């Protein structure tokens, strides 16, 4: 075996192809034929009690209608995570976009002859729009924006918290095209005295009427500047939305967590008092500080003040290489990934190859807009064999920079701690 070039597998495959199916049986020989039917155990679907180490959460790859196989965390309601490889692009294919529904019973079918987006509540005139009207009567606009689950990376929490045990794949970036929320509100005419705008889709749950398990509703303050950039999107990446991602329209709230991006948006209501429904008053709350962090002790002592989650803190991710790649010393390589922030454009990404002791600037890729993924790359030639711990941190226009301090809150939200990954470098000869 001194010959450095041993193209054995290729040769064998080529042979098998030539031999055809009969040849396959012959070539596989006795060992293969003698193999017994063995039921292999399922792969683990949970991690813990320590933090999840891998990039993605754990689960089988399963496809739902209009989707490619995604990592199944929970089957009903659907929680499906996007595999790491899809983040090699700053835009995520609609078919690979993660899925998260809070309630299990959402429409399997939309009849656009009867479906209407209804605006009402504290308005001059209650109005409703068919999809055809949304397409015809309003100026279409587009925004590139990241949609990220509030609980993305929840499995990194320590101590662990219950909920969807996401790795990093509960996010994606798309070009969303639709109608300005402001344009719709203008048609209805918001009356003076409005406080919040409530959004609701068509999903329902089996919980008792009036409970959080029955309906899903989210509200934004009427004086929140985010309303100026909200759109009611009927397309993502130039195609209709998959039904599990919100067909026919979903709310797009650039910079904010996904909890507000109502799927199958059908009701918009102007409220004259603060929304007190479960999903605003009890769920999706973060400690009342920018990072949304506190301690288990403070929660126990009930000394923590909470507020509804809103914008996404700055984050960055290593996408390639993954842990399965061993790198020969001296090989010039490129470490690549994405960064995001809902609080101002990503202005800087830094990479460390010594686990955060020293940092160097990464090269920022194309700017697709303030709310989109910002690709980055870092040229690195490891000189010595060994195990390196690579880390990445991003800074946004607000001046916020990622740190090593672990985020903790009771619901497992707003994780943005620095990501790390081991890269093994071997001798080149």
């Amino acid at each position, binding site marked *: 075996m001194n010959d450095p070039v041993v193209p054995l597998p290729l040769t064998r495959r080529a042979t098998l192809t030539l031999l055809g199916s009969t040849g396959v049986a012959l070539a596989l020989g006795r060992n293969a034929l003698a193999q017994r039917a063995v039921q292999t155990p399922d792969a683990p679907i949970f991690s813990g009690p320590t933090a999840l180490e891998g990039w993605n959460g754990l689960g089988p790859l399963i496809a739902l209608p209009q989707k490619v196989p995604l990592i199944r965390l929970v*089957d*009903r309601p659907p929680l499906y995570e996007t595999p790491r490889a899809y983040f090699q692009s700053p835009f995520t294919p609609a078919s690979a976009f993660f899925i998260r529904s809070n309630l299990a019973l959402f429409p399997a079918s939309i009849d656009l002859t009867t479906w209407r987006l209804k605006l009402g509540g504290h308005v001059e005139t209650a109005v409703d729009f068919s999809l055809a009207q949304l397409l015809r009567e309003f100026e279409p606009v587009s925004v590139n924006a990241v949609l990220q689950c509030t609980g993305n990376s929840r499995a990194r929490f320590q101590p*662990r918290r*219950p909920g969807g045990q996401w790795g990093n794949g509960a996010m994606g970036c798309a070009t969303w095209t639709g109608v300005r929320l402001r344009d719709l509100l203008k048609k209805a005419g918001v009356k003076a005295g409005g406080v919040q705008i409530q959004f609701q889709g068509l999903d329902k749950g089996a919980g*008792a009427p009036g409970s959080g398990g029955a309906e899903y509703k989210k509200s934004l303050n009427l004086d929140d500047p985010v309303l100026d950039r909200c759109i009611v999107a009927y397309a993502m*990446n130039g195609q209709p939305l998959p039904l599990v991602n919100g067909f026919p329209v979903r709310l797009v709230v650039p910079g904010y967590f996904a909890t507000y991006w109502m799927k199958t948006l059908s009701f918009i209501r102007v409220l004259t008092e603060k929304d007190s429904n479960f999903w605003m008053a009890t769920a999706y709350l973060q400690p009342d500080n920018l990072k949304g962090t506190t301690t288990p002790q403070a929660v126990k002592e009930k000394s923590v003040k909470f507020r509804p989650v809103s914008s996404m803190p700055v984050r960055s991710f290593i996408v390639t290489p993954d842990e399965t790649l061993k790198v020969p010393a001296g090989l010039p390589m490129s470490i690549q990934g994405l960064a995001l922030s809902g609080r101002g454009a990503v202005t800087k990404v830094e990479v460390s190859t010594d686990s955060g002791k020293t940092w160097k600037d990464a090269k920022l890729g194309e700017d697709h807009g303030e709310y989109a993924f910002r690709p980055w790359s870092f040229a690195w030639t490891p000189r010595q064999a060994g195990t390196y711990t690579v880390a990445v941190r991003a800074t946004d226009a607000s001046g916020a920079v990622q740190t090593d301090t672990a985020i903790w809150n009771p619901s497992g939200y707003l994780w943005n701690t620095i990501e790390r990954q081991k890269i093994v470098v071997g001798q080149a000869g």
Partner: protein
Amino acid sequence: MKYPVLWGLLFPAVVVALAIPLSNVIIPGVAAATPATTATLPVTAPPQATTAGVPPQPASTASPSKPAVAVQAAPAAAVRTTPPIVAAAPDQVQTVQYVDQSRRVIDQVTAPAYTTDASYSIGSLTQDTPALVEGAHVDLVRANCSVCHATTFISSQPPLPGSLWHDEVYKMKLKYGATFISNETADQIIAYLSAHYTPETHASGTASTAPSAAGSSPTTAAKTNTVKTTAAPATPAASTAGVDGAAVYTANCASCHGVAGAGVPGAFPPLAGNPAVTGDGKYVADVLINGLQGQIAVNGQPYNGVMPAWAAQLSDAQIAAVLTHIRSQWGNQGAAISADTVNAERARPTTAAQRLTERPH
């Protein structure tokens, strides 16, 4: 070409996305300057204020025949002018069906046969619920937790302290509207979770490496006849002798359908005065064995929930006894059902769709 490796992976959608000019990106403050991305002429007539509240005529020129699965406009309920608004979403929505399937046949879903009218549908969603660890009260966990979510929500959690499981179960009961879980049942569920899903008790891989047949979720179990041999209770008895139908009811059914069989309006159908309960004995046995999910109506009231399958938890004799019980209580007058009938239904595979269409009205 910063991402050369990607072109093989990418979908045309992304290429389309990348092709959309950056000039169309909304930037706060300059959003008004954003040009239209499509050539559609603006329709000058705004929605008529005078007809507000009345659903406009269908804009589509598609087939006039309205599909039965229409999402109904919820007229007055949807938009009120007096806040706060807590109007419900329409009840007539046909919701997704979750269908048990094993892996390897589900990574390539087939497209439904589309029509060119205004109805946009998807097929069923795959449900592939892994086994829970066997143990005391696991049947209660399956029956109660499965009403709102797959038990995968339990088995995918990290090992959690018993106190946290306690909080989670009571959150379901008090916040998520799982009002059908009695305090006693809640405590039994917590006892089960504490016995099997804490850092001390949850050995890595315990649940997921269990043989798939043993302790299958009720819905999965119902699909295969092999479950008969692995079901926890004793082999189905040939008669109902010695089984107290009322006791089976109290232990397994009353949490949802109520001690008086009245159900919970809008959430859990009543059994009292329910024609499907007192009608064909084979049908109601089928529902108990295999479960029921989807849109149904009982005496005009719509329901759209999930009833778990009981094949794995109840023997033929228990099912027969509880059926005989509910068919003769609360004014119901249905004939007794034998364990043999139940046994025959067990052997007759039916689909979820069948159980909806065969349902007496």
